[in-house]
């Protein structure tokens, strides 16, 4: 393998990692604020991608790419808010087993409904004309759309940081993580805040799904394949930590790139080995805080 194709392989792994970060950030945000494990997070990703494909197909080829990229995650976020009101709200303080099974049940239902609504065929969405080309650097042609996905992930990371640390909304979320009752006593509407956080998590999953549409075929089964990857990233980084999600995505991107370069057949096994290794050395992930008092036993 020469230098140019190696560089393209690495860029492709970085793109996967960048997109995984966007999805994992949503998972981590929801866990950090609401303390729930959402196994239906992959379903939001799939719904985002499917909505993207459907909205895109409404207009003449290429015209609706940017509106669809924004609208698909927004619609999914609205759907997420409804599910939070109806279901997730009931299980914030339930055992992990209840949370895992409720969200798993939901993912089964959503997978079936998506199959009903969109069918079993996979769809494709071409990248917009402006990003369809390649950027030539030193004899290697890097796909522009890959660079866009990486830039989008950076923007999401910065945006989330600013949201959590520079706005009133972020201040309230962090306060709710520390002490929901206290915040409630201060007159804040904590349930509405939680709905908003859950919707934001769904938005991020769907944004990841919509952004990945030009890179792969869109169809059923996307939900469970991404879920395991997103969980690995979040767990390696430390559940609840956005910076951890970025670090976890970087670790997985690196392991995957090295794996594909040298031992392609073993690349998937390396990812699980990386997760096992990290958890054995640091049981709460690289940047995760030990579990909060009231989520512990006794």
């Amino acid at each position: 393998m020469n230098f140019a194709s190696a560089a393209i392989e690495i860029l492709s792994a970085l793109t996967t990692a960048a997109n995984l970060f966007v999805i994992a950030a949503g998972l981590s945000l929801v866990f950090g604020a609401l303390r729930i494990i959402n196994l239906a997070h992959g379903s939001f990703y799939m719904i985002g991608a499917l909505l993207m494909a459907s909205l895109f197909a409404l207009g003449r080829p290429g015209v609706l790419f940017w509106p669809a990229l924004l609208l698909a995650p927004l619609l999914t976020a609205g759907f997420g808010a409804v599910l939070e009101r109806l279901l997730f709200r009931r299980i914030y303080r339930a055992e992990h087993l209840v949370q895992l099974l409720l969200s798993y049940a939901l993912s089964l239902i959503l997978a079936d409904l998506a199959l009903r609504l969109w069918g079993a065929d996979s769809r494709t969405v071409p990248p917009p004309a402006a990003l369809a080309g390649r950027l030539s650097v030193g004899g290697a042609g890097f796909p522009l759309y890959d660079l866009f996905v990486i830039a989008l992930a950076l923007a999401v990371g910065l945006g989330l940081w600013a949201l959590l640390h520079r706005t009133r909304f972020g201040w309230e979320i962090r306060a709710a993580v520390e002490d929901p009752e206290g915040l409630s006593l201060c007159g804040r509407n904590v349930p509405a805040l939680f709905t908003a956080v859950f919707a934001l998590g769904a938005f991020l999953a769907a944004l990841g799904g919509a952004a990945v549409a030009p890179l792969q075929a869109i169809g059923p089964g996307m939900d469970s394949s991404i879920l395991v990857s997103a969980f690995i990233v979040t767990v390696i980084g430390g559940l609840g930590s956005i910076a951890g999600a970025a670090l976890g995505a970087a670790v997985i991107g690196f392991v995957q790139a090295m794996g594909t370069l040298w031992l392609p057949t073993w690349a998937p096994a390396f990812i699980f080995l990386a997760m096992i290794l990290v958890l054995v050395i640091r049981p709460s992930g690289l940047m995760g805080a030990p579990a909060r008092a009231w989520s512990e036993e006794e």
Partner: protein
Amino acid sequence: MATRARLGVGFALLLLIAAPWVLPTAWLLVLENALVLALFAAATNLLVGWTGLVSFGQAAFYGIGAYTVALAWLHGIAPFWLAFPAAPLIAGLVALLTGAIALRARKLYFALLTLAFSELFYVLAEQLYDITNGANGIFGAMVPDLLVSPRPGFYFTLAVVTAALALLHRICHSPFGLALQAIRERRVRAEALGLAVAHHELAAFTLSGAFCGLAGALYVVHDQTAYPELLDWVKSGEPVIVAVIGGISSFAGPLWGALFYQIAHDALVVLTRDWQLVLGALLLLVVLFRPGGIVSLFPGREEG
């Protein structure tokens, strides 16, 4: 066991012994599947319901049990009658090793570590093409002819499952089983009282893995095939779901759950494409409104 429960078990056994002479072959195979699933779910419930350890990785041991029988045949390592009893031993050994690592983490992280191990073994089964035939799986005449015909096959499965469940029942209601329940209820207090919590958890994990491996070996008797999806996390979720639907706080819960799940699955798959939707909705209702599962619907049922 209370007299009523004894009578119930005896009656159920009589029904099962009569089944091959009453049921059509198709339904006999459904029942055989349900028996294997019942063992798989009861073994998983030793962790989930009894010890309070939520494992999403028991398919690893189920799959290892299945692959033990299949690989022994494929490579001519051992005859079936040697490979079959070896399956739970090998699965138990692997459970001992992975449990020693996974049990370092607690609660949610434990669940995710077991899930990672399950996926790791799944990837290994798929990638070690020269040994396992990869994603194609292994199929062929790996089971003695006698066990392939429906009636002897059913009686063999029934005998093994009954013996294994009797053993599991003994374990669950022994002082060891009570200690596991103490760990589930108050881990710190159990430790303070001088219980070797870590050793008990590892022993439970190993035992559960061995019984899951036995269930996997029985799966091969039933289907004469082994393939990588027997080890993945979706398969790992199955015994947990079955146990929860049946009720995790009693020994009988997972057994009822398995019977219900298998019959509902096999009946619905024929009728509709929406099996997943029905299962999801059912699970949702159980989790939200009937956390005790099916057994909690029976009035005045004693535990055990």
